């Protein structure tokens, strides 16, 4: 996702090595995705649903 748009930065974080950060974002299972410190996605989702959820784009809105 980051490679597709210069406004996006992505980080893969090893949860057990950064416990403080994991606690802050209540990582109780993996994978867990946090977008802009606010949006939480637990587990894996189908590609388009994942992107729509991460970017807060409603399912019924058309693709740009």
């Amino acid at each position, binding site marked *: 996702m980051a490679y597709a748009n210069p406004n996006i930065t992505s980080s893969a974080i090893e949860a057990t090595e950064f416990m403080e950060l994991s606690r802050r974002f209540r990582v109780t299972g993996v994978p867990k995705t946090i*977008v802009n410190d606010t949006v939480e996605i637990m587990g894996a989702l189908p590609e388009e649903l994942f992107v729509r959820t991460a970017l807060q784009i409603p399912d019924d809105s058309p693709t740009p």
Partner: protein
Amino acid sequence: MSLLSPQDEQVLKEHLSAITKPVTVLLFTQAIGGSESGVVAKQVLDEVARLNDKITIVEKNFILDLDERAKYGIDKTPAMVLLGDGQDTRMRMFGAPTGYEFVGLVEAILIAGTGNLDLQDETLKLLAAVDKPTNIQVFSTPT
């Protein structure tokens, strides 16, 4: 002792042969107060880089290389920053890239080195429309 078996190396080498652009992985570590995983990260990266001459590992000192820390937004170690053809891909990894994280590392290297994204057209359109800074953090574990 190698972390990768000769068989793993052979398979990985074939995957990495798709790379057409130079890939640089900046590895930020710290000797004092740093975790053992920095040493593991270095070994993993060196073993991968050995398989393809377009991959280069550059070690950075988390305490001393402050300008580059700031440039790439690195606030913890070990940290990996992937550059494709010298340009920041905005892909980062934190922690030793072992287990599932290793798969992520290889995929990130392939994206940086080929420019190919294995994403659907609809997804790419959604991503292209992002017009404000978006920080995505994915937490995972090696097993």
